[in-house]
């Protein structure tokens, strides 16, 4: 059993690698057509992603929020609740956690406990709206979470232009800075990556445990249908709401990390398109915590390398999008390719 699993994960890795190379080759056509050297550009991209400690630090900066959000999304997805509103939940979490830092005077140690909790509550409540609409009105959560993303974006804009704007900040869309004592501390001189890495590791372990816990089992059960959930003596509706809240709480936690560890204030653009990427990572990682760990690393490296390539070479900025799109689109064909290969093998065995 163990051996079989190992062998299949090795072959998955291989196929994934081949697919990524294929996507890069396709991308190379675009680069070449724009009059640049693909080899050179990809060299810059690779170096830009993994070339130095500070590069790894940049990957972590992206990976921490993406992984936590994807873990949150995976909770909802495994219950077959298509929560694509991670971004909105993160934004609301950022707002609520920023409120603590800006307006509630607390000793720093207490603050470090309260602020993330506020972030999680914010994200959870935002997600709960969609859960409640689903339970109460059978409103499709794909749409409600999508719409709530937009609402959250404008809510953030309202906050940073309105009530939470930095006093004396000349109307720029941002809040005052968080006191240094309550910011997340960098892990090394000159590095941006900070103690949120430990938060991410903690969340990862908790989620691994979560799937072995009773409530995790309930969430999984809900994924098999509301009928069987009710049949098993559970309240499917209540489970839907709790699952959404838990899912949103993790995104809200990311809001806290971004405010206290990356930007040190609330500002527009804090969502940064993480919501869509979290969905991609969740599904690429097949909704398992370890899969999400690897997928988030891969996507983050792709983002960081791509951004470097864009600024260090003369390619049009859109090529980075093209390469990312190609990688994602081709990667999702991997399960099918694997299936085909396995079927061929099985047939081979029998024919002998």
């Amino acid at each position, binding site marked *: 059993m163990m051996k079989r699993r190992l062998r299949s994960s090795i072959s998955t890795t291989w196929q994934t690698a081949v697919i990524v190379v294929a996507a890069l080759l396709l991308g190379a056509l*675009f680069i070449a*057509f*724009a009059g640049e050297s693909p080899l050179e550009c990809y060299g810059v991209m690779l170096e830009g992603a993994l070339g130095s400690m500070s590069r790894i630090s940049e990957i972590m900066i992206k990976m921490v929020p993406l992984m936590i959000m994807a873990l949150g999304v995976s909770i909802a997805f495994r219950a077959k609740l*298509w929560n*694509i509103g991670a971004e909105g939940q993160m934004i609301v979490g950022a707002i609520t956690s920023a409120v603590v830092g800006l307006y509630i005077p607390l000793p720093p140690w207490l603050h470090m406990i309260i602020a993330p909790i506020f972030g999680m509550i914010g994200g959870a409540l935002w997600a709960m709206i969609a859960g409640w*609409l689903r339970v109460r*009105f*059978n*409103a*499709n959560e*794909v*749409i*409600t979470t*999508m*719409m*709530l993303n*937009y*609402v959250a974006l*404008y*809510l953030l*804009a*309202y906050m940073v*232009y*309105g009530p939470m704007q930095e006093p004396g900040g000349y109307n720029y869309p941002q809040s005052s800075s968080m006191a240094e004592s309550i910011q997340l501390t960098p892990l090394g001189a000159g590095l941006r990556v900070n103690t949120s890495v430990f938060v991410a590791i903690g969340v990862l372990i908790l989620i691994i445990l979560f799937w072995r816990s009773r409530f995790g089992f309930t969430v999984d059960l809900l994924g098999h249908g509301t009928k069987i959930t009710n049949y098993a003596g559970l309240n499917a509706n209540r489970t839907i709401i709790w699952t959404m809240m838990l899912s949103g709480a993790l995104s809200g936690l990311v809001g806290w990390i971004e405010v206290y560890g990356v930007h040190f204030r609330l500002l527009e653009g804090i969502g940064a398109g993480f919501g*869509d990427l979290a*969905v*991609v990572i969740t*599904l*690429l990682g097949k909704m398992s915590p370890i899969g999400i760990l690897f997928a988030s690393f891969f996507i983050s490296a792709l983002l960081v390398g791509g951004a470097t390539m864009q600024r260090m070479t003369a390619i*049009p*900025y*859109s*090529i*980075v*999008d*093209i*390469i*990312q*799109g*190609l990688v*994602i*689109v081709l990667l*999702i*064909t991997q*399960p*099918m390719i694997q299936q085909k290969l396995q079927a061929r093998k099985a047939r081979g065995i029998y024919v002998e």
Partner: protein
Amino acid sequence: MWNEIFSLTFLTSLLAATIRLATPILYAALGQIFTQKAGILNLGVEGTMIVSAMAAFTVSYFSGSLWLGFISAIVVGVLWSSIMAWLSNTMNAVQVIAGIGLNILGAGVASYVYRIIFGVRTLPPQIDPFPVVELPLLSKIPVIGPVLFCNNVPTYIAFLLIPVSWFLMERTTFGLRVKMVGEHPRASDAKGIHVTLIRNIAVLIGGACAGAAGAYMSTAYMNLFTDNLVQGQGFMAVAVVIFSKFRPGWALVGSLVFGFSNALQMRLQAIGAGIPNQLLLMLPYIVTIFALISTSRKAEMPSAYTKPYVRMER
């Protein structure tokens, strides 16, 4: 302020804007009705639209023919969505990621090709967009005339497509096949319906309509192409389809609700309603949620929604 709101010109302007803003969503939604009813959730409408908008603009610019541009956009929409068809129906890929991936790819490709073709210019290339065609007599009716009968031809076409799609869905064998395939692909297969073929066609119809929506944006609504020309309209179209429960008439209602709240929001800002603009900007999305609630009670998604069909599996 209130007397301004209740003036006739305000109303006419508001409703005319509603139609303008609703049209691209209506186009895309009508196509997605077929796609989604066949069981495919294509979140990549946005990407299809931007690629087609670019194609329509480019072809119109060089050929001088808006219609050639419009048709090219439809062709490009079909070609682009055939990637989605391949991913979802042949490779059985996860449809949600396929859509998101194609959106990222589409944004990149549209921007890239535009830049390669047009380079960096001091002023953006422009075309003369589809002109307004006032229908004789009808356009003279107060309020209704200027709202409904003073539009460009692509808008009229979009409205004509409503009965056409209804007919296709309810009165033809193709429509029934689409429903069957979305509801119970295995049964369809057993009844001799070619599931993959029907699903592919349904995705391509969606692509063609998204193509028309894109063309509308760059050659009818605007007269130029920018990277951000399609801001969330593709997603709105997907929302409208679910709201409409796959009925073309209701897709119109959904598009109008969105268009109306968006148009209203801008006008409330303009006349100084005293509400912060960021809060007004939320309006269309909140209204969409309420609209969804009002129709969701018994919403029936196709049973095989987002599920790939594999003959060998049970």
